[in-house]
């Protein structure tokens, strides 16, 4: 009788331990799997080239193509913005339903070099946004993207930027829909985008 009771306690303890272990193992896994699917609404409050503050609210009803970069970037940024420009051209009449945004992660220098002339050189529809340090960091954190200033004596002004080079698609209600990894051809982006419009 006492043994049986002990056994019960042991079984209960084993059961609890299994349950606790299961929770420990499964919960973080489920959480990490759920992250890419989880609907979240990244946000930003950033001035455009004319100093007018823009937020996602004014783009309600439109899809947003968001890219974080810097205008002093010779390789990655022109490549991605060229693809965005091609997508906008190929959308034809549907182009009004999509707003491309270029968010500067090097805002001070980009303002000095000229933000509007940079975005316009790729496509007139692209809006360039460049805030202050805090606004930029807040936008990047909200999109869960990385950027950092890297000291480099040989680079222009002694530094360069490393950053997440993907293109982000935000839905008409502000929901993060997906990312297009760096190098996704314009035709693939267009094919994904068109059925959504």
């Amino acid at each position, binding site marked *: 009788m006492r043994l049986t009771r002990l056994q019960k306690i042991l079984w209960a303890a084993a059961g609890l331990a299994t349950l606790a272990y299961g929770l420990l193992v499964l919960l973080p896994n489920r959480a990490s799997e759920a992250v890419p699917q989880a609907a979240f609404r990244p946000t930003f409050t950033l001035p455009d080239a004319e100093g007018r503050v823009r937020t996602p609210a004014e783009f309600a009803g439109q899809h947003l193509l968001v890219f974080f970069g810097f205008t*002093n970037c010779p390789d*990655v940024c*022109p490549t991605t913005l060229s693809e965005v420009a091609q997508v906008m051209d190929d959308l034809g009449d549907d182009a009004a339903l999509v707003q491309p945004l270029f968010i500067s992660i090097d805002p001070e220098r980009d303002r000095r070099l000229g933000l509007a*002339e940079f975005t316009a050189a790729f496509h007139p529809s692209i809006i360039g946004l460049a805030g202050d340090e805090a606004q930029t960091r807040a936008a990047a954190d909200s999109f869960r993207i990385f950027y950092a200033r890297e000291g480099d004596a040989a680079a222009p002004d002694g530094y360069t930027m490393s950053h997440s080079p993907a293109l982000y698609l935000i839905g008409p209600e502000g929901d993060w829909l997906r990312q297009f990894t*760096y190098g996704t051809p314009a035709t693939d982006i267009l094919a994904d985008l068109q059925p959504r419009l």
Partner: protein
Amino acid sequence: MKSLILSALLTLSAAPVLACETFTLGDLNIEHAWSRATIGADRPGVFYVEITNNGSTDDALIGIATPAAGMPMLHETVVTDGIASMPHAMSIPVPAGQTVELAPGGYHGMLMGLTTTLAEGDSFPVTLSFQNAGEVVVNVEVLSLRAEGPDCDDAN
């Protein structure tokens, strides 16, 4: 017949494209040298090229020089764990029997300190220095800001 007309058309359209010129230095074939138009001269320009080593000895591109820029350097765009950075490339290997591309998203020449705006249709010389083969000057064609590469009939 159709394909003949098509290839004739392609040849015609490709004929004036400078970036399709091929340069030879020993066993090295150098082609598709191009750059992107810049907005002003304050931002760095870029230099792309394709190098084929037809020989049996490995070589390496160890430097570039051009009158178009005060400080041209070799860089590589590296995307690690979703972060793009652009470390210097001390040298770019050109192994025997292989083709190495300096192309968007990978190796590229970064032209810092541009002496002038690079406008579409312009061209400028770049001297390529190789570890073994020595030096060669190639003509670089400036394509549009939105170009992804030269449109050569032999491009694949």
